[in-house]
């Protein structure tokens, strides 16, 4: 079965951002025999649309969180079936996120953390003005994604220092390095040897998912 109707209903419910409606769509799809992994994939597509609408100013952060709460409740409903499929049940990865040392701007980084969390990543958000060593320690502790943000041209250079430290300590290859923030560009990402540049929170999340 293609479950096209259920897929659309799930995606629409996610974009509607109402937890009861999302739960109803999940229960209906489940009762109709749609496999749990397909339900989660359909909801993820809806979540991507939610991220795009947030950036366009058509949905707001509480809506994004309501959609994420709906997704979380779906995981509870589908738990037993997902548990049988360990790949679907497991996290996409563990991300350490933070605004680099010397920089106190955190709103963009926080939105990005939220989007990543909504996409199924475990997120360790260290906040802002994060000592460089803390990023290194988190990677050594098992984080396989490292997201660094900077809003100032004077602090974005710290990203390069952290990547160099990762290389020196032999852990660079164990982690996907993501960079973002107003002054950061794809060219700068390439120059310092990071893996992902995100023009926006949703773009970063999509690129991270593609590597998961």
């Amino acid at each position: 079965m293609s479950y096209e109707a259920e897929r659309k209903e799930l995606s629409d419910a996610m974009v509607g951002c109402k937890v009861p409606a999302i739960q109803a769509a999940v229960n209906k799809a489940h009762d109709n025999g749609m496999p749990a992994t397909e339900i989660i994939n359909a909801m993820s597509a809806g979540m991507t649309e939610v991220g795009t609408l947030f950036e366009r100013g058509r949905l707001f952060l509480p809506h994004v969180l309501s959609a994420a709460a709906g997704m979380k409740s779906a995981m509870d409903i589908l738990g037993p079936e997902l548990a049988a499929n360990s790949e679907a049940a497991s996290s996409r990865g563990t991300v350490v996120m933070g605004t680099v040392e010397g920089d106190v701007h955190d709103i963009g980084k926080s939105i990005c953390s939220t989007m990543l969390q909504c996409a199924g990543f475990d997120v360790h958000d260290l906040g802002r003005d994060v000592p460089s060593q803390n990023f290194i320690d988190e990677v050594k502790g098992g984080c396989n994604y490292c997201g660094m943000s900077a809003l100032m041209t004077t602090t974005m250079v710290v990203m390069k220092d952290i990547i160099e430290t990762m290389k020196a300590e032999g852990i660079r290859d164990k982690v996907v390095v993501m960079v973002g923030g107003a002054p950061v560009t794809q060219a700068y990402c390439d120059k310092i040897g990071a893996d992902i540049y995100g023009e926006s929170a949703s773009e970063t999340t999509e690129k991270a998912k593609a590597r998961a």
Partner: protein
Amino acid sequence: MTEYITRMGDGRTVTMTREQIYEDAMAGMADGADAAQVPSLSDEDIEQIVDIICNKNRIVAVERGHEVILTEDGGPHKFMLDSGSCCNGVEMGRIDVMETIERGIGFDTFELTTTDYSIKPVKPIVGPEMTAMQQAAMRLTVPCLYGAMPNMGLYYSPDGAHLNPADLMREFRIEEAQQNAEAAAEQLTRDIVYVSESMMSAGADGFNFDNTASAGDAEFVATLRGVEQLRKDYPGAYITMGMAAENVLGIHGEIEYDGQIVAGLYPNDQVKLCEKAGANIFGAVVNTNTSRSFAWNVARAATIVKDCVKNSNIPVHANMGMGVCGVPMLETPPIDCVTRASKIMAEVACVDGI
């Protein structure tokens, strides 16, 4: 086929044919019209944008009669500071810089600021700042404002007394996040009134609220309420409100000003609320996408700003700094793009000032 030297949104130099520039301008216009829900530019507007981008001269200027007012934000520190690759690094006093910029560079207004450039840090030094304001007002001829960013981020932990809504949201504590944003907004409004009215009493001609709504919708509402009070108490104050981004981030999502939810508003609607609150000048912002071309970005910006100007009863000044309104995201914005974007804003978007 002739190729023209232009740039990407991150400032990289590229060459493009006129046809490629036209296609990018059309695509940028379509994206801007869709994002802000505004009309597209006319064919003549697009042709004019393409002509300006393809101009062979390194810098361009407006035609006679199209000159616009030049206001300023950031204050004297851009002249004094030295970050290594931007600002001028000239060791001078703040008021000396203000005189230099007034008489040597020709801005039409200027402002006194502190290095922190935020409302909250001015509170403990308001006395010395009032003294400096008095001196500046006496020495300058152009309207002399005091300038600061509302910067509501400073009211959240770890800097302030209120829990950070973005952190609470991640824990699904949505109502608590909204309550903290509202409480922080109330505190910010009180501080805006205290600082701005202190400066007005010290002889400022007005106040510039720069980078408004950087922390989202609750900050926008707090600033509008502060402006409303300042207007009531100082009817002759010259109040400018410049925005932080093209749309108001919905961190709270439901907070209202004058019965309207402010989250998600674009410049054409932002300006109406600023006017209602009592601002004299609105500073429109459109974000630059660093992965797109200058043509894409500047046509997108012109589309959004033109409709804002059309819908506004107060002067609209386009914010032509690093990474906004078509200007590439580069520490020292390239002069070829800055002059082209400025000409496009003046002649196509019909702004009142820059």
